[in-house]
Each structure stands twice: as structure tokens, then as C-alpha cells.
């Protein structure tokens, strides 16, 4: 060894415990908030019986996604298959977790992306942080999440947000930076305020790219909820985990299939949300 042992692991550990000791009340507050968000969303999703939910979901998809009938029918069939496998409750639990994670990731990610596009300092700080977040094996996030929030849905959500946020920031930043320079000149030449420029020119022009980030964020959230089951997040991920532990092929496959169906519906829906040019 050229360098002596730098004790990086120990340092990170002590920082994590220090945060837990001194900011515990903040973490508890956040934990409660997230818990209410997830369970509220889950209860809302479970409020309707599966059949009614399926119909409403299909109609919603039809009207939101440019009236593509195939997409609506596919959604309905997929949801009915989930119900027939007896995985409805777990699927809604997972959907609630995914949507909450994505919502929080977007609520932080899009403004941060805008900031990074507007401010070189922010950009140069976020860039390495995002690289770090995306390349660090996602399992590693589980450890501090457990220390801060115990076991359950909340640490699952936090790990998911950390994992799913980077593409939102990157693509929002990219979308705004890619707005053609002459459109920015038009905006300036006609006397916009910075806020008008953002709202009337930059964001609308960047929307397709930003929506690609939203899509990525939701997809990554979904892939992370299975991993999050390792720290007690409930839903389909837990079902897969149990399948692995018991070498129960059938159970593992059914839960996996339900995840795939949800993934496809969410993916197609978000891809088709982008307004037509």
C-alpha cells in the first residue's frame, strides 16, 4: 500500500451515526410525512374494487396518452391478469411506493436540473455527485437508509429516490441547455424577464427531454422497489424476495410478471404524455 489506510469506511460510518444522533427529529418528521404519503396513496389506490379501478385506469390512459386504444386495452388486460394472480393488493402497494418515490424524486430533481442549467457552479457541483449516485451499487444506499429510518417502506423510498433522481436532473439540465440559441435570443430580444423566458420558452421547448427524464425516473423507481424489499419495503418486491429464498419459481415469476405489467403501463403512459409538436 502506497497510502496508509485512510479509514474512509469508518469516517462515513461516523458521519452517518452523527447525523442520526443530531438530526433524528428531522428524520422522524420526514419519515412520518413519507409514511403518510405512501399509505395514503395505497389506500386511495385500493379504495376502488379491482374491476372499477381497471376501467378507470384504462380510460385515464386512453385520454392522457393521445387516445391510443391499444394502450388502453393493454392496460385493462394487464391489470386483470394481476388481479387473477391474486396480487392486486401487493401491486397497489408497490404502485404507491413507486409513485411516491417518483413524485419526490421529480419534485427535487426537476428544480435542481433547472438550477444546474442556469448556474455553472451548481452544474459543476451536481455533475460528480450524480456520477457518484448512479455508479455506486444501489444496495449500498440501503445501509444508511436503514440506520436513519429503520426497516419498512420509508427507507425503501429514500433509497429509491436517491437511485431514481439522477436522470431527472441530468435530462432537465440537458433539455434546457439544448434549447436552440436563437430561441433564447428571441426571448431576450422581445424583452422577457428571466422567469418568462423559463416558463414561456425554455421549459416548453425542453419538455420532450424532460419527459424522457420523468420516464427514466419512474422506471428506475420500479426497478429499485424490488431491491428495497431487502430492507422491508412491502409489495411485489417482497414477494419476489420470498420466492428467491424459498426457491419458489411460480411465486417469483408471478410477482415478477406483475412488476413487468406495471412497468410497461407506466412506461408507455409517460412516453405518450409528451405533447405533440
Amino acid at each position, binding site marked *: 500500500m502506497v497510502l496508509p489506510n485512510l479509514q474512509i469506511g469508518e469516517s462515513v460510518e461516523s458521519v452517518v451515526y452523527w447525523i442520526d444522533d443530531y438530526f433524528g427529529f428531522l428524520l422522524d418528521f420526514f419519515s412520518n410525512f413519507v409514511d403518510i404519503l405512501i399509505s395514503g396513496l395505497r389506500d386511495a389506490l385500493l379504495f376502488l374494487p379491482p374491476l372499477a379501478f381497471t376501467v378507470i385506469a384504462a380510460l385515464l390512459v386512453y385520454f392522457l396518452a393521445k387516445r391510443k386504444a391499444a394502450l388502453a386495452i393493454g392496460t385493462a388486460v394487464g391489470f386483470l391478469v394481476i388481479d387473477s394472480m391474486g396480487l392486486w393488493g401487493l401491486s397497489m402497494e408497490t404502485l404507491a411506493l413507486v409513485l411516491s418515490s417518483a413524485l419526490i424524486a421529480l419534485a427535487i430533481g426537476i428544480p435542481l436540473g433547472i438550477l444546474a442549467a442556469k448556474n455553472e457552479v451548481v452544474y459543476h457541483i451536481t455533475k460528480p455527485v450524480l456520477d457518484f449516485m448512479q455508479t455506486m451499487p444501489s444496495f449500498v444506499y440501503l445501509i444508511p437508509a436503514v440506520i436513519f429510518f429503520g426497516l419498512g417502506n420509508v427507507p425503501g423510498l429514500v433509497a429509491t429516490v436517491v437511485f431514481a433522481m439522477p436522470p431527472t436532473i441530468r435530462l432537465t439540465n440537458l433539455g434546457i441547455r439544448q434549447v436552440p440559441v436563437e430561441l433564447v*435570443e428571441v426571448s*431576450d430580444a422581445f*424583452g422577457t424577464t428571466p422567469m418568462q423566458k423559463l416558463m414561456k420558452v425554455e421549459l416548453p421547448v425542453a419538455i420532450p427531454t424532460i419527459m424522457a427524464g420523468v420516464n427514466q425516473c419512474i422506471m428506475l423507481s420500479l426497478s429499485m422497489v424490488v431491491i428495497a424489499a431487502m430492507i422491508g419495503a412491502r409489495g411485489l418486491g417482497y414477494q419476489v424476495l420470498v420466492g428467491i429464498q424459498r426457491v419458489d419459481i411460480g411465486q417469483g415469476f408471478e410477482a415478477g410478471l406483475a412488476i413487468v405489467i406495471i412497468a410497461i403501463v407506466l412506461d408507455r403512459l409517460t412516453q405518450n404524455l409528451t405533447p405533440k409538436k
Partner: protein
Amino acid sequence: MSKQEIFEKTNQTVGLYNVNFDVYDGETFVLMGLSGSGKSTLLRCLNRLISPTDGHILIDGDDIAAMNTEELRNVRRKKMTMVFQSFALLPHRTVIDNVAFGLEIQGVSKDERYASAEDAINKVGLKGHGESTTSSLSGGMQQRVGLARALATDPDVLLMDEAFSALDPLIRTEMQDELLALQDKMKKTIVFVSHDLDEALKLGDRIAIMKDGYIAQIGTPEEILTNPADDYVSEFVAGVDRAKILTADNVMKRPEPVVSINSELTVAVQLMKRHGISSIFVVNPDKVLQGIVLIDHAVAAMKQKKKIVDIMIKDFPKLQLDTPVKDIIPIVAESQYPLPVVDDANKLRGIIVRGSVLGALAMTDEEAEEKIEEVAQ
């Protein structure tokens, strides 16, 4: 120190230096030069899309270069708008919302801004296209939207950055004609950037020729063609040489319409109205030139039942078929009327207006040769 030396010493490029000019109210001022000459940079300094490091830019006595953000925004909103080479329409907006953009950001109510936008759309000949998406329009139509957008806020000054350069030649000519027609009515102050001599001569009341960030010459098209300030300008307007080669018969138009000296005055007035001209040449049955009648005189005289002979002007400049174009330029610049071209027997053979001379000078070499051959045959 040259631009190159400054770049080597400081790693900074000189954009513009020692540029001084006035643009008069209601004139079309063309900034012209090759790419890299600084003409677009200069245009962008006028509304401070690029801020000059030093100097003053005065509009109505206020220095744009010294304005704070708020004052500058006001100038951009009320006094100066811009038309871009690449059209630069907002792709997520319909035509009318693009045109209304300037008013929208000023907080004008929807009804009001749509009314103004509709006006501007009609002005540029796009009536009925308000609800179209911009991507469904051709290049020429897109630039009409760009022009309408710039007109909708009713600014005093229009900045046009190579506005027609991206259009194909036919459409470009059409747009130039329409800009001239619009300008006739609107009398805006226009600063027009172009790299095309033909376009500059056609549109410009005055032209500034730029090179390496400075202005080589400012003058009317005639001054620049006949009296280039330095070698660069004379090279640039190489068409000047043609002024010695081309003669009146190369550049004249067909002698139409003319009116016979025996006709009633009403015929002359009719002809002028139909052709949209303000004067007409009078010939006898052998096509020998007799004089010229002006529309104002004719209309006044009609009530007094006068004849053509009574009111026609006999004393005005005439050109011979072989008068060289370089001699025509000063005459045509001075003359209030079109110039008649006559042969040895004083028969009217053609008519020369200011535009046809300038157009001929801006011809390519091949076009000029063709013209010469045409006449020779």
C-alpha cells in the same frame, strides 16, 4: 495593431472597433459584409443581445449601452424588435401565439394581443393561418410569421439579421418586394444585415460595408457603386466594372406603357392607374418621344378638359441607346421620373428606372454576358 496580432497577444477576438454611424428615422439601413466581418455582432449590439465593451448606442437620446436591465427590457419590448435568419419560431406555439409573443410578455390581455397579432398576420399576407402550427408552413411563410411577430408590438426599429438569406432565391425576391411595399406604408426604421449585394442595393436607402469589425464605407447604393472608398469596397462591388461595359440598352425595360399624343387625357390616367405608376411617356404614332405626363397634373387637368399636349413636360433628361451605365447612375439618382431611352431618330426604345440600373450592376457575370449578347443579336 492588426486583429491577428491582438488575438495572438490577448487571445481575444476583436468584434467591432471604431464603428460610428447614424440611422435616420424611417430609413432602411443595410449592414453588409462577408461572414466574420462583424455585421451580425453589430446588429446584436443595437439591442444588446451582445453588450459592447465600450461606446454608446443612442435611441431617442437614451444610451442603450448604459441602460440597466429594466430600461433595456423596456426598449426591447416597445421600441426594437428583431427578425432572425433561422426564423426562430417557438415550435410549441401556433402562428398567432408566436406573433402575439411580444405582447404576451408585456402582459397585454388575450383579446387585445390577438387582435394586434391578427392585424400583423394580415399585413404579411398570412390571413387565415393563425391557428396553423409553425412546422406546417414553408420557409417563406415561416419568415412571414417572424416578420409579423416583430411588427405586432409596433416597434420603431426593426432589426433584421439576414432575414431572407435562408430562403430560396425566388421566395427571397418575393419577400424583398413585400418588405419594400410594407416599408412604403409603415415607414419603420430598419437595420438590415445582409451578405448579398443584390439585396443590399435593392433594399437599402443607405448601406454600410463592413470589413474585419470596422465600417469601410457608408453611403447610398449609388455612392458606393460609383465612388468606392477603398480597394476593399471596390472589390466588393465588383459590379462597378460592369457600369463601364453595360449600356442603356442592356438595362432598359420595354417601353410600356406609353400613351399616344392623340389620346384623351383619361386614357393616360387609366393607364397609369392600371400599371400603378405616377408618370407616363407620350409618343406620336411613329413612336417618336414627345414628352411625359405626371399623374398629379393629369388628374387636375382632367376637370378643366385639357389635352395631353397642354400639360405634358417636354424638358427632361433623355438617354441614348449607347449611354454607359456609369453615366446613367448619377442621372437616374437625380431624376424624379423614369428615364426614356431613345435612338437617333428620337424614337422611344426603352425606359430605365433606378431599380433596373442597380439590378443590372448586381447581376452575376454570366447574366451580364447574356444580356449583352441578347442585345447584340
